[in-house]
């Protein structure tokens, strides 16, 4: 399904722009400029306003990024549980820094705030799925699921 059709499914929903962005991102991993322009047309809002929404929320990206989105929580409970070592281990494994994507487009690495799984810190999520009690030694095995 093209992005126009995806966006159009939400056009009757009051305030459905954010839901439409979520749906497009599920397919494309980010929100390209033409998607934002098209969404503005369908929802009948100025392009600046649609872009304002796309750039406000941290889960939306207006830049191309890897398909599998790894997010590492660095809020205080994960911070004291050793999140920084987990970040370093993933960076080393993928050869990229937080905020970057791998050259083959398979992974994006992002820092995030609390994901609400604080019973077992540190926590990372991949495409929304949470991995608990993560430590540097577990990273290779976890990432292998997505390679």
């Amino acid at each position: 399904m093209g992005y126009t059709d995806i966006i159009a499914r939400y056009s009757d929903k009051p305030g459905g722009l954010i839901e439409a962005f979520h749906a497009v991102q599920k397919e494309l991993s980010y929100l390209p400029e033409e998607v934002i322009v098209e969404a503005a047309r369908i929802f009948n809002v100025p392009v600046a306003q649609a872009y304002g929404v796309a750039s406000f929320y941290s889960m939306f990206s207006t830049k191309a990024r890897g398909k599998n989105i790894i997010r590492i929580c660095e809020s205080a409970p994960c911070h004291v549980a050793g999140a920084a070592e987990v970040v370093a281990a993933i960076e080393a494994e993928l050869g990229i820094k937080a905020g970057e994507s791998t050259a083959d487009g398979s992974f994006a690495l992002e820092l995030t705030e609390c994901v609400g799984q604080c019973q077992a810190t540190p926590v990372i999520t991949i495409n929304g799925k949470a991995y608990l009690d993560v430590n540097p030694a577990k990273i290779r095995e976890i990432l292998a699921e997505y390679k």
Partner: protein
Amino acid sequence: MAEEMRIVLRNYGKIDPLKIEDYLAQGGYKALEKARSMGQAALIDDVKKSNLRGRGGAGFNCGMKWSFAASATADQKYVICNADEGEPGTYKDRLIMENDPQSLLEGMAICAYAIGANQGYIYCRGEYPQVIEILNQAIDQAKAQGLLGDFDIEVRSGAGAYVCGEETALIESIEGSRGEPRFKPPFPPVQGLWAKPTIVNNVETFANIPVIVDKGGAWYADIGNPAYPGTKVFTLTGDVNNRTFFEVPTDTTIRALVFKFGGGIRGGKKFKAVQIGGTSGAFIPESLLDTQVAFDAMSAIGATLGSGATFVLDETRDLVDVSTRIAKFFEHESCGKCAPCREGTARMHELMKKLNEGKGSSKDVALLEKLGRVMSYSCLCGLGQAAPAPVLTTIKHFPADYNAKLM
């Protein structure tokens, strides 16, 4: 010492959350039936009598809030559940929604009847895709059984903005806009979603409602601390032995939370500090641990109850480092609408980083105290007003950590 008491988590582990039959077998939806037979005025009076106060952090009397929306005249009213649980260290709303979603739906339906609304929204944080699925299934099941009557509920997903936990920012987000808080008044019960009277309550608040209606407001008012009755769910993180959750009456002390329920400090170390209410909460020293975990009791010691997140730190932890991390959080999460928060959180993080790197002086500490004071009364919403609390309370209660890092 106090024992655990489960009201909002009453069905935890006892039912299959995806089987409405299980919820019905536990007496589910009997409270909605009773509420409808009571009539709106008597229902709201009973909720008022329970003295249930909002579990999202603001502590406003729930029945009172409902009465404002009930008395407003409008062609359309809305009920919104705030499930944008973004406060670091908090996962109580996820527990309720994952394990007993019908209890939330029933609470919302009772509210809808009380104020005369036929449309509801659950605004669930985008980080909980699995919870959104559970909620949608639960809504379908309740509708299929005809339990909700003409009340419709739609789940909307957040997209990673902490500020959307603020009720007017949340409303903006449901409307499809940037989640920036509105100027108040008007408050949502008068003018909320699409400018219509709207009740926004937290997941935990709604989950209390069926039990209150079932057992009566007087029964509830008698539990825990009289000024903030009932129970509260706490999630324990950091250096405690039991990193888990508990629901306890509100006359439980912080000491009992950490040492009884939390099982004390890990690795035989000594207690240093506890931060309650989430990352905007105050850091509390040993000397104040006998405070009850009720709204006003916490305010009296310059702390908050907030979401009930309980973040415990042992004697080896450096509070300047932890507060620097927290300052970074607020710089990132400030929505940028008002200058005191947009600029203040950035400067606060800058100063904390300087101190944490050992490059700061006592002048920087004094500047932080002044900046924090200004932010606490000049920021537009609760985010900016509460953001300085961790820094201000660590300066106040743990000056040694700062002194050790001064140039």
